[in-house]
């Protein structure tokens, strides 16, 4: 059998070879296995076909001159197998086969490497483009959201932060800002909170979020919110973003002020309805004081002085004065437009206080008030004035609802009760009630059944209940009529 140098023996997968290094290895392997066979073939063939040549025989084997074979155009196949060929001119391949093979291998190897490098380069270019694009997106997003990124490192307790420049317009990339400078621009009252948040995040390797004010170069205060977390690789490094939240804060403050103004306005209008009652409450003690004083004046003109009676008069004057002062104190709080407080309150106490305010008005309207206050009610947390406003509003609404009833049926029931984790305050009337389809609508702003009503009362009531983490619902009263119940959570830690 004859094995010749044939190109078809090269594996067809060559073109698709993935890497230059692998290709070189394959070539070397092929050469190592093929070399001995190809080296042996021409000699054997020539010897086998030497019977056709007329060279003098050396012994019993045929002697063939290779040059003559070339000259006469005799193919090597025609030489007998046992003939010996002489003057065989060796080719470059036959004389320097190894060198040629090595050369080819090196070239293939280089080609492979170049190819590999090209692929790598292309891939890197693609990555760089993607990175640039992503960074551009990031920058755009940061600009739109008015946000800057920062890294906070704590090396040898020398804290530095890479942060935005102070006017906050454009993130200052790569600018290393000494954290102490940044800290100086933070409002003094917020500094402790910021450092505490950073420290805690570093110590616990957790996330943090902190809001603070910084002073812009023009002297204005801006609100910022910083969020971040510890670097998972280097726990002492914090990564984060800072957002300018001045607008949001301003809107929040504005909304807070608007709500306070609405509460105040509706409260003052409520108190307007109570003005007759208030006048009465103040005039009673004044009447008593005046009459007592005039009686005392008259008594002082007589001899002997009735000292025990005069003493009693003085005691009565003091008592009346205290009553008037109480009325003023109760009203003062309701008229004032202060910040809502978060104090510990006994709801029963609030109810009692409020009923005193509204009692005269209800008496004038011939409404009887029945109070059923639960003993030992757990305390709630909230603003006394707002809760009084809620109750006042519900009580006046209930009395309005009963205006058409005969006088002996106008009964207003105010009830407090403790109910699993909440305190319930219910105000029930015996009026016509509210049809089920209108039950949610009564809480909508500007919903009113009275022609002169503003329709804010119940909306404000519900809002007050919700501000106190509670709810306000409307149900049926046991004797017919509407029952408004406010649920307020019990103060924690009780």
């Amino acid at each position, binding site marked *: 059998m004859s094995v010749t140098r044939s190109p078809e023996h090269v594996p067809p997968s060559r073109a698709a070879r993935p890497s230059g290094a692998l290709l070189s290895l394959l070539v070397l392997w092929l050469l190592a296995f093929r070399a001995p066979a190809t080296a042996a073939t021409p000699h054997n063939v020539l010897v086998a076909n030497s019977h056709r040549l007329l060279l003098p025989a050396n012994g019993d084997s045929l002697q063939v001159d290779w040059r003559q074979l070339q000259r006469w155009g005799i193919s090597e196949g025609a030489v007998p197998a046992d003939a010996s060929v002489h003057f065989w001119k060796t080719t470059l391949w036959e004389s320097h086969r190894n060198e040629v093979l090595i050369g080819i291998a090196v070239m293939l190897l280089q080609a492979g490497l170049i190819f590999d490098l090209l692929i790598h380069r292309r891939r890197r270019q693609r990555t760089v483009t993607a990175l640039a694009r992503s960074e551009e997106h990031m920058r755009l997003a940061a600009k739109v959201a008015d946000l800057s990124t920062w890294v906070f490192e704590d090396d040898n307790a020398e804290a530095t932060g890479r942060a935005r420049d102070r006017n906050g317009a454009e993130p200052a990339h790569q600018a290393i800002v000494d954290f102490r400078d940044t800290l100086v621009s933070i409002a003094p009252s917020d500094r402790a909170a910021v450092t505490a948040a950073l420290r805690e995040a570093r110590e616990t390797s957790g996330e943090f979020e902190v809001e603070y004010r910084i002073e812009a170069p023009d002297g204005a205060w801006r609100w910022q919110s910083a969020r971040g977390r510890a670097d998972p690789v280097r726990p002492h490094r914090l990564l984060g973003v800072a957002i300018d939240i001045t607008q949001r804060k301003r809107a929040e403050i504005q909304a807070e002020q608007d709500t306070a103004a609405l509460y105040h306005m509706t409260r003052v209008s409520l108190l307007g309805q109570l*003005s*007759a*009652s208030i*006048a*009465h*409450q*103040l*005039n*009673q*003690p*004044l*009447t*008593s*004081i*005046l*009459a*007592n004083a*005039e*009686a005392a004046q*008259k*008594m002082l003109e007589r001899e002997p002085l009735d000292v025990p*009676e005069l003493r009693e*008069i003085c005691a*009565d004057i003091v*008592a*009346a004065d205290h*009553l008037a002062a109480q009325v003023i104190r109760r009203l003062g709080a309701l008229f004032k437009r202060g910040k809502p407080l978060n104090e510990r309150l006994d709801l029963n106490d609030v109810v009692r206080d409020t009923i005193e305010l509204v009692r*005269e008005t209800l*008496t*004038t309207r*011939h409404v009887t008030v029945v109070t059923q206050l639960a003993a030992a009610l757990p305390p709630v947390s909230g603003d006394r004035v707002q809760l009084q406003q809620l109750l006042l509003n519900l009580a006046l609404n209930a009395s309005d609802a009963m205006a058409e009833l005969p006088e002996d049926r106008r009964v207003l029931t105010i009830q407090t009760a403790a109910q699993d984790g909440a305190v319930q305050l219910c105000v029930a009337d015996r009026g016509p009630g509210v049809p089920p389809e209108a039950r949610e609508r009564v809480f909508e702003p500007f919903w009113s059944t009275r022609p002169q009503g503003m329709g804010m009362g119940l909306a404000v009531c519900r809002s007050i209940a919700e501000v106190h983490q509670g709810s306000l619902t409307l149900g049926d009263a046991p004797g017919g009529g509407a029952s408004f119940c406010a649920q307020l959570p019990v103060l924690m830690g009780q």
Partner: protein
Amino acid sequence: MKASCAPVVYLVDDDVLVLRAQARLLREHALETAAFESAEAFLAQHDASRPGCLVLDVNLPGLDGFALQRRLADIGSCRRIIFLTGHGDIPTSVQAIKAGAVDFLAKPVAGGILLAAVHAALAEDALARQASSADALLRQRAASLTAREREVLLRLAAGKLNKQIADDMCISVATVKFHRARLMERMRAHTIAELMRFAARLELLSAGEAAATPYRALRT
């Protein structure tokens, strides 16, 4: 004067401090007082025949001032009332005065004003009582007249002379004169002018009262 006949100032107010102070003030001005914390308590103990007046707070729990005023009118008591209120407005004061209140005062009321109102109410009450007792006497006397005497009185009041009356009644002038003398005596009138005043008073009374008044009877 007996204690039971002295006028009493009734005070009704739901505020004990006010009640006590006003009672003191009125006592210092030599007035007898009776204080009540509610309209119901007052009604339970009220003696309409006792002279006096009522100082009444408008705004009371339960029966309020106006309701008490109506209740008193219903039971025929014309107790003089001075209203006191912590928040007087024009409609309520008009309502009170129209319903016959003596005065309508806003709290806090100065002692002088309250005393003046109380004295005015007491004077009115005394006058009314006097008048009503005079009226009662007059009615009593008119009731004692005979039918003939009433007819003569009616004709006298119409301005007729003795002769005309005698003609009308188909009696003699002497009989008319006799009736007239009896009439004057029974009505305790000293002059014919006084008799005419009594007649007018009786007519006035009959105008404001129910059917069977003496003067109506006189006309029939």
